């Protein structure tokens, strides 16, 4: 009796983990409350300085930048859950939503920044909220498509037997979604979110300081801090901002994503115990607390009860039953496709006629040539990065110790928004009077080459040991070792990286081909600088033309080149 009371008493006392967790949670709440005041402030007038280069402001700016990321993440999740679910559950919706998503993935987001800024400013005239939303929207567009695709694919590949259990137990649509579909999609979705997030930093800093025609938007944040530092050519401020950014990304990774990835491990369906279990000190900390767990339990119980509410989805959204799949109404389908085609035709006409207000065929031809320049730039640089990095990455990947140390660094470098450094880099181009058409090109691959690096390292590390031993045993070496052993082995991984790098490079070209440093503007010929210049001038039809042309090129490049390569690698080379 006494014993049980004593042990009960001991268990109620918070342990050291509780204290740490509590402090952390309070800190987050305080931070959110602090920055909320800033978000809804009235828009500053043009000559009122929003950002000062004082170092002591940096933590606050970092917080604002990080919160923008967080808001975009939340919006992306909401979008993902509605859009992907609709696409996965309704065959007719799928016919429209999936191709649309596919195109959206290829649209250079930065090119559209000018439109969204104008749109959101119009929604909240005279308030910073509009500009905030525009920035958040830019990040959103860099994440949401990827995440929606991941969820859609997961929803379409729910294991059949688990689906049958859910239907056999007569779970309603709502119950089935939360008991089966959402958990099943979790690992893929989280991994994709983390990857999109690393792309997002690039956009958040790009969207904090933007000029559209006469309107200049400056939001307090690390991005605008750097923009100002670039204007003034202040090297030490740039250094401080880079350091701040590095810390923010590190914290995001350690405090948010590592714990979630480690936790999501339990949603993996393969029933064998996987060898590599992600671990996170934050998750361990939370799981060892007593009070936090005690406090969280009712929350989890309530969530579970809500997830089990017998809510039925409308008939159209009920999982496509096999008969519906078998006997689709052909007439309704035809009408539906006709309607889609009509809307698409109308939208095309609208776009073309808008572009035609300013541009003629000569202009179109000019943009076509510019896009080809950028295409050559992107492909050459990926080739260059491949030649340099693949051997190095393979070398690293085959040495587990090195790989373990270097892979996270490469992953971090891929997340780091290198556009922060563009201005500074350009000062070198100016100082040495270099050819901008050549030297600015390197900026395109600056941030994206790391995708190639860490994917290739991953591929080389996963290369089966017995194959390596066989190659050594048969004295395969030199050129033959590369072409018949290693390159086919890492190809699927390398291609994953190269495809991401290619997509990112197109986006980067908009910032990289048109860079400002102090009062100089340096440009390289290409569709990126064309879009950036038109944005500066507020010339909307030209922006649309540039973005449309770039989108077409990106889509074609993806379809005709990358996907074919990838499909081949998956079919023939996946080990």
């Amino acid at each position, binding site marked *: 009796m006494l014993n049980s009371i004593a042990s009960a008493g001991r268990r109620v006392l918070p342990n050291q983990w509780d204290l740490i967790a509590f402090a952390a949670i309070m800190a987050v709440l305080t931070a959110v409350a602090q920055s909320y005041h800033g978000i809804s402030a009235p828009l500053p007038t043009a000559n009122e300085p929003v950002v000062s280069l004082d170092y002591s402001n940096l933590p606050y700016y970092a917080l604002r930048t990080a919160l923008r990321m967080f808001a975009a993440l939340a919006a992306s999740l909401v979008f993902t859950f509605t859009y992907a679910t609709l696409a996965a559950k309704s065959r007719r919706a799928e016919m429209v939503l999936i191709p649309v998503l596919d195109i959206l993935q290829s649209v250079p987001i930065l090119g559209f920044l000018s439109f969204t800024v104008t749109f959101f400013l119009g929604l909240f005239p005279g308030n910073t909220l509009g500009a905030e939303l525009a920035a958040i929207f830019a990040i959103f567009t860099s994440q949401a498509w990827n995440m929606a695709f991941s969820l859609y694919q997961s929803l379409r590949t729910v294991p059949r037997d688990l689906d*049958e*259990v859910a239907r056999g137990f007569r779970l309603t649509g709502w119950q089935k979604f939360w008991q089966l579909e959402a958990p099943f999609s979790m690992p893929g979705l989280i991994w994709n979110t983390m990857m999109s997030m690393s792309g997002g930093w690039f956009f958040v800093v790009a969207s904090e300081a933007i000029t559209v025609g006469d309107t200049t938007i400056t939001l307090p944040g690390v991005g605008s801090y750097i923009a100002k530092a670039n204007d003034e050519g202040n090297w030490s401020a740039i250094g401080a901002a880079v350091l701040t950014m590095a810390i923010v990304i590190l914290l995001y990774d350690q405090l948010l994503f590592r714990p979630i990835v480690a936790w999501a491990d*339990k949603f993996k369906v393969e029933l064998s115990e996987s060898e590599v279990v992600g671990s996170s000190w934050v998750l361990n900390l939370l799981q060892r607390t007593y009070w936090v767990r005690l406090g969280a339990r009712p929350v989890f119980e309530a969530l579970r009860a809500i997830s089990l509410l017998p809510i039925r989805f409308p008939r159209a959204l009920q999982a496509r039953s096999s008969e519906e799949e078998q006997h689709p109404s052909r007439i309704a389908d035809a009408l539906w496709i006709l309607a889609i085609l009509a809307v698409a035709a109308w939208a095309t006409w609208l776009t073309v006629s808008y572009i035609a207000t300013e541009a003629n065929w000569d202009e179109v031809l000019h943009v076509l040539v510019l896009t080809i320049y950028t295409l050559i730039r992107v492909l050459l640089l990926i080739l260059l990065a491949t030649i340099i990095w693949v051997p190095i990455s393979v070398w690293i990947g085959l040495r587990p110790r090195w790989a373990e140390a270097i892979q996270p660094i490469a992953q971090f470098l891929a997340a780091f928004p290198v556009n922060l450094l563009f201005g500074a880099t350009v000062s070198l181009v100016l100082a040495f009077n270099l050819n901008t058409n050549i030297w600015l090109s390197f900026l395109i691959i600056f941030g994206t080459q790391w995708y190639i690096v860490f994917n290739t390292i991953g591929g080389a590390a996963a290369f089966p040991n017995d194959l390596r031993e066989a190659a050594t045993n048969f004295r395969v070496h030199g050129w033959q070792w590369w072409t018949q052993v290693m390159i086919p082995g890492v190809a699927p991984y390398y291609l994953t990286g190269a495809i991401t790098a290619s997509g990112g490079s197109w986006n980067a070209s908009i910032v990289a081909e048109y860079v400002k440093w102090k009062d100089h503007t340096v440009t390289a010929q290409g569709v990126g600088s064309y879009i950036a210049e038109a944005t500066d001038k507020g010339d909307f039809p030209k922006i649309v033309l540039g973005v449309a042309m770039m989108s077409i090129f990106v889509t074609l490049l993806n379809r005709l080149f990358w996907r074919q390569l990838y499909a081949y690698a998956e079919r023939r080379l996946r080990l």
Partner: protein
Amino acid sequence: MLDTAVTTLLNVDKVSQVFTTGSGENRKPVLDNVSMSLKAGEIVALLGRSGCGKSTLLRIISGLIHPTEGTIAISGEEVTGPAKDVAMVFQSFALFPWLDVLDNVEIGPRANGVPLDETRQRALKAIDTIGLDGFESAYPKELSGGMRQRVGFARALVMQPKILLMDEPFSALDVLTAETLRTDLLDLWQEGRMPIKSILMVTHNIEEAVLMSDRILVLSSNPGRIASEISVTIPHPRDRLDPDFRALVDRIYALMTQRPDPTKHPAPATSLGLAMSLPLVSTNSLAGMLEEIAAPPYNGKADLPHLADSLALEIDDLFPLGETLQLLKLAEFEEGDIKLTPLGQRFVDMDIDQRKKVLGEQLLANIPLASHIKRVLDERPSHRAPATRFREELEDYMSEDYADRTLRAIINLGRYGELFAYDENAQTFSYENPQ
């Protein structure tokens, strides 16, 4: 009338199932005019080979699939959606990996609005009955296959179904675990400790069907029909070595290896023999099986149950091998035995080149698809032909899956017999081999 409604739990009436392809054309039916019933207090086994539609029938009965034709009634009530009085146990266990054992067992009652207290009580009782005490907070990943399937049973029992449906529940388990689970289940059934009235199980394991059930329905393949019904009257507990048990097993082997009676379901006259679907088997296994039959103790003629045992093969592996040998006239089935033909006897003593030659000849002589491909290659000046051509021809007579499997089987056999070469990248048949 009232009487039958009480004792007949399940009534399957003239059920047919046709799966349509994307293009909407009807394909060969999976199930053809199947009728059966299930009475309270009996265990019935649906026995058949893979692809005979037995699992489809189980899913139709559970209401997961709507039959193309025919009706299902449980306790006299027609089934139109997922049925209330049935619960299913899956071959793959189908546990939610993110839920622990207790949550997995509770999911059914909770989703169906059973109050929390009662859910917990029923779940703990089911867990206790099935022997999972102490594992309530374990996750499926931490459990062995046998324990996982026990969770599968507990999850079904907690729904208190009238009929327990089992889809090859023991076939993913190792031999020892499977046997333990079978006996445990039979004990619970005999003692009436499970809240169920009847069990319908699907299996491809002949001995399992004889060991457990009161009645065996043997399904024939392609399309699935009920070929015969066998009552098992051997008293429990049944002994696998009991002569009656062995005799029944032998009889079922003989039944299942009988050639289909061509007068009953004649093949279309214009098919050129292409309607023959081929199983995918390895040429090494074919040779291995011939050698096994030729060697002592069989000396050219083997009892199928013994052969299955000594080769550790399930009927889904054994029968396709035997049938391919029969097609190639190297061996033949005879009343539950398999016997080498004189050619088969000679084959065993040949070296590899001779074997390849014989196999090539037998393919051309006995498998119309092989001679068809060779003829087409001969006729064409380029001596090349795309695989799609033959695939489409096959699809006139069989479903896409079967056509694909048949094509892969003929590629495999044809390569071994050196009849033709096949380029997977270009998907073309040719005579060219690398020089």
